[in-house]
């Protein structure tokens, strides 16, 4: 599985997201930006999580929880393609 951002979503290098359909904008922190950039490179959820566990001081269970929260938030803000 990999999350698919809507095609028209603009993300700046600093992690600023603009959804042109709704006019809403959001700010990502560093880790959020890393996740989004990997998703844009079509990396799977498993690959992203593996990378994060290696890079940051966390365990798989905690990461899973935060990762799902993050995906839910992206869905809630209508930033993902339908079905993701």
């Amino acid at each position, binding site marked *: 599985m990999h999350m698919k951002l809507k095609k*028209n979503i*603009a993300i700046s290098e600093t992690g600023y997201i*603009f959804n*042109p*359909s*709704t*006019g*809403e904008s959001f700010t990502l922190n560093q880790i959020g930006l890393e996740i989004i950039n990997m998703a844009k490179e079509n990396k799977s959820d498993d690959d992203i999580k593996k990378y994060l566990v290696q890079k940051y001081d966390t365990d798989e269970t905690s990461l899973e929880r935060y990762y799902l929260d993050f995906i839910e938030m992206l869905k809630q803000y209508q930033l993902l393609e339908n079905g993701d």
Partner: protein
Amino acid sequence: MNRRKITVAVTGLNNLDSPGPGIPVIRGIRESSFFDARIIGLAYENLEPGIYMRDLVDKAYLVPYPSEGSDALLTRILEIHARESIDVIIPNFDAELTAFMKAEKTLLQNGVHTFLPTLGQFNERSKSNLPAFGKNYGINVPESIPVFSASEMEEAVKKLHFPVLVKGKYYEAYIANSIEQAQYYLFKISAKWGLPVVVQQFVEGTEVNVVALGDGNGITIGAVAMRKTYITDKGKAWGGITIDEPRLLDLTRTIISRTGWKGGMELEIIKNLNDEFFVIEINPRIPAWVYLAVGAGQNIPEALVKLALGIPVQPFEKYTIGKMFVRFSYDMIVDIKDFEKLNTRGEL
């Protein structure tokens, strides 16, 4: 290119916390590369800020309210025209539009052009007729019931579920969660704007707006969609951003083509939680946030002036997404002599 010299008269100089569209309309016309416009401001009140904005308004005149009779207004405008040779007049208040529509022929006979919806178009989209409008043109609109009395209000809210919106004929809207609140707003609004007051089903969702211009033959000359990012306690946009929502523009084109709409228009739309659009209001004129459209690449006021003068206009095909407007308030220093002149001579 030599710009064409014209004189344009504009109302709605009330740049207050609930601003009229006059000043943003003037800014659009001033930025025209086609026209070199002399701007005549027409004001109903002596403290409408636009009167004193000398860099935008070349000359201002006080005019009588349409409620004093459309003849009095027309007489005053023709008197001003005799001195200023007005080419185009752009009324910007809902409440004055009927008077200008009725005077359209007389104004044109005197060489003053307008570009207004027909009386039929104006009445058809009025708040109290909105449900019929939605049915006729296949547009989603919330249930609305015109109310003339307290007993009718009771009947109306029985049919609709709380919360409901209680709306004035021209301006103002409040959310009511009980019959007591609804009755209170009925009296509050009707005292100011008359009857009927319209009770509308409240649709939960995000409000989006479109400013548009129809050529009177079903063609949409311009349309820009915006989401309010900062809303005042009066529900007015104090900030907004242009958005890319093709369905909104399709909806606008559908309305303009089916009605043959002529003139400026603002659509107030709610996108509900199921991603459906409901038109909650159709304002028959350019809105106060039109300068955002100018900034995003569609000079709708300039296009309206061209259409009024019979100059062909190609429809705008795009606008910049993500352009924002941030409104501000500003204190002008005005000499008492200017105020005195306006009050004693009716002009400045």
